[in-house]
C-alpha cells in the first residue's frame, strides 16, 4: 500500500527532503506531496548582498515547483492548520490533506509587529530589515542616500536565521562606506542582546576583534523593548536609549503562523519540539521536522537544513518500514562570514564543539576562523551548489553531514555544554 508523505514548506529543507525521498518513491511505495503558499523560492543568503549592490534581487528567486523532482506533487496553497490527532493538514480553502507521515519544513517567519513601535512611521523610511526581499531592496536605496550619521544594526532577540548575517552586514557596510569615501562620516553600531559579538565564545572573541579593527561599536546586553521612530531611538527594557539615523533591524522570529493555529504542534514561539538527534518531533511519532521550523539548539541556517536532510531521509524510510531510526544528527553547521573587501571567514561547529581554528573539511582545506579570499569565493560559488546540488538532494563532494574532526585545532580541550 502506498504511504503518503506530506511536506509543509518548499524552502531549503522541504525541497531537498522531497527530492531525496522521490528517489525511493517506487521501491518504498511513497507518494510525496509538498505544500507551500507561493511559487517563489528565494536564495536567502543572497539577501545580505542586495543592500550593497553586490547581488541583483531578481537573480535570487526561482520557481519552487521547478526545483522539485518530477515524481513529487506540488500544491500551491496556504496552510491553515494541522490536525495532529487526525493525521491531516487543513488548507486555507478548507481542503483536507491526510498524511501517513508529515514533515514540517515551514521555516521561521519575521515578527516585527511584536516589538512596540517597530512598524511605526519610520518602517520603510529609515528602518529596514534585510531579512526579506522588500526590506533588502529598500535598504539599498537608503544606504545609497546616506552620507553621514549613525547606522545601527540591532538584533531584537535570538533565535534568528543565520546568526552571523547581522555581523556580516556591519562588515560589508564598513567596506561599502570606505568604497564611497564616506567611512569617516558614518558611525556603525552593532547592538545585540547577547553578552558578546556571537553566541559561541571562541568565535565571539575573533569576531569582536574584527569589529574593533573596523571601528564598529559593539553594544552588548541591549534588549530592545520599543522603538521610538519619531525620535529615532531604540529603548531597551532596562531604560537605555540608542539613537540612530538609519536602523537595520533583525526582527523577532517565530515559526510559521499555521503552527500557532495547530493544537499541540508548536511551542510558545511556534517552533516544533524536536528530538535533536533523530529529528522526529516530540509531538507525534509520524511528524518529523527539518530546518528552521525545529525548536532545536542548532543554528537556523541553510547548511544545518542540508546536513539534517542526510539524516532525516533514512530515518523517515526506517520509520515507515517499522525499523529503529538509524541516523543521528550532530548539530553540524557550516557558515561563511563575509568580512568585506572580497574576503570571508569560515566557521564549522556542532552541538558539542564550538567553532575552532584550523582547516575545513580537512588539514588542506579552507581556513577556519580566518578571513581569506578563498572563503569569499567559496561563499559565492555556493549559490550554484545550492540550486544544482543541494536542492536536488545530491551530496556535496567532501562535505558530510557529520562535522569533520580532521583539520581542527585544540579539538579535545574545547568543548561547550549544550545541555541537550
Amino acid at each position, binding site marked *: 500500500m502506498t504511504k503518503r508523505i506530506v511536506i509543509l514548506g518548499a524552502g531549503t529543507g522541504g525541497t531537498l527532503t522531497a527530492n531525496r525521498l522521490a528517489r525511493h518513491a517506487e521501491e518504498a511505495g511513497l507518494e510525496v506531496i509538498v505544500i507551500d503558499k507561493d511559487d517563489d523560492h528565494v536564495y536567502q543568503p543572497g539577501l545580505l548582498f542586495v543592500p550593497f549592490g553586490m547581488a541583483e534581487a531578481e537573480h535570487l528567486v526561482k520557481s519552487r515547483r521547478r526545483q522539485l523532482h518530477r515524481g513529487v506533487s506540488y500544491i500551491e496553497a496556504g496552510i491553515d492548520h494541522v490536525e495532529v490527532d487526525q493525521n491531516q493538514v487543513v488548507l486555507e480553502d478548507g481542503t483536507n490533506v491526510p498524511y501517513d507521515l508529515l514533515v514540517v519544513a515551514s521555516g521561521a517567519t519575521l515578527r516585527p509587529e511584536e516589538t512596540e513601535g517597530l512598524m511605526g512611521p519610520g518602517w520603510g523610511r529609515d528602518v529596514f530589515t534585510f531579512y526579506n526581499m522588500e526590506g533588502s531592496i529598500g535598504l539599498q536605496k537608503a544606504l545609497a542616500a546616506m552620507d553621514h550619521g549613525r547606522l545601527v544594526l540591532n538584533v531584537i532577540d*535570538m*533565535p534568528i536565521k543565520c546568526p552571523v548575517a547581522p555581523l556580516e552586514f556591519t562588515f560589508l557596510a564598513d567596506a561599502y562606506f570606505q568604497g564611497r569615501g564616506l567611512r569617516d562620516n558614518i558611525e556603525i553600531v552593532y547592538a545585540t542582546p547577547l553578552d558578546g559579538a556571537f*553566541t559561541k565564545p571562541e568565535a565571539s572573541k575573533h569576531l569582536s576583534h574584527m569589529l574593533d579593527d573596523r571601528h564598529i561599536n559593539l553594544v552588548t546586553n541591549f534588549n530592545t*523593548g520599543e522603538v521610538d521612530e519619531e525620535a529615532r531611538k531604540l529603548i531597551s*527594557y*532596562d531604560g537605555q536609549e540608542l539613537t540612530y539615523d538609519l536602523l537595520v533591524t533583525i526582527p*523577532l522570529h517565530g515559526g510559521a503562523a499555521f503552527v500557532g493555529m495547530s493544537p499541540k504542534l508548536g*511551542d510558545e*514561539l511556534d517552533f516544533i519540539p524536536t528530538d535533536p538527534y533523530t529529528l522526529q518531533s516530540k509531538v507525534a511519532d509520524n511528524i518529523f521536522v527539518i530546518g528552521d521550523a525545529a525548536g532545536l539548539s542548532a543554528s537556523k541556517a541553510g547548511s544545518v537544513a542540508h546536513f539534517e536532510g542526510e539524516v532525516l531521509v533514512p530515518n523517515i524510510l526506517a520509520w515507515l518500514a517499522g525499523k529503529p531510526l538509524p541516523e543521528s544528527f550532530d548539530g553540524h553547521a557550516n557558515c561563511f562570514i563575509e568580512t568585506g573587501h572580497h574576503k570571508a571567514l569560515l566557521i564549522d561547529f556542532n552541538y558539542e564543539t564550538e567553532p575552532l581554528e584550523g582547516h575545513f573539511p580537512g588539514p588542506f582545506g579552507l581556513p577556519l576562523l580566518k578571513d581569506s579570499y578563498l572563503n569569499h569565493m567559496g561563499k559565492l560559488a555556493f549559490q550554484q551548489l545550492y540550486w544544482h546540488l543541494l536542492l536536488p538532494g545530491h551530496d556535496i563532494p567532501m562535505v558530510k553531514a557529520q562535522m569533520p574532526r580532521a583539520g581542527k585545532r585544540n579539538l579535545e580541550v574545547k568543548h561547550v555544554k549544550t545541555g*541537550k
Partner: protein
Amino acid sequence: MSTITLAGKDIARTDDGFFEDPSQWTEDMVPDLAKAEGIEQLTDRHWVVIRFMRSEYLTKGSGPSVRALGKSSGVPIKELYELFPKGPAKQAAKIAGIPKPIGCI
C-alpha cells in the same frame, strides 16, 4: 566552579553562578539567592517567575528564554525586567537553582 553554603548545605555552582546540581535547591534558599542578585524585596510576582522557571526546567529539561517566559509565565516582559533588572532569564534561573538557560545559537 565555586561552593557556597545555603540553608546549611554546601552548594556547588558554576563560575557564572548557576547550580551544578538543581536537585539541591529548596525554596528556603530563595531569599539569600535573591539578595545576592541585588533583589532585597521578594514579591509574589518574583515567586511566580521563580516557580515557573523551576517547573519549566523540571518538565522540559531547560529554563525558558526571556521571550518564552513573557509569553507563557503570565508576567509580561516589561515587568520581568522590573523584577529582575539584570536579565530575567539569567537572574531567575540562578535564584531558581537551575542551569543557565540555553542560549539560542
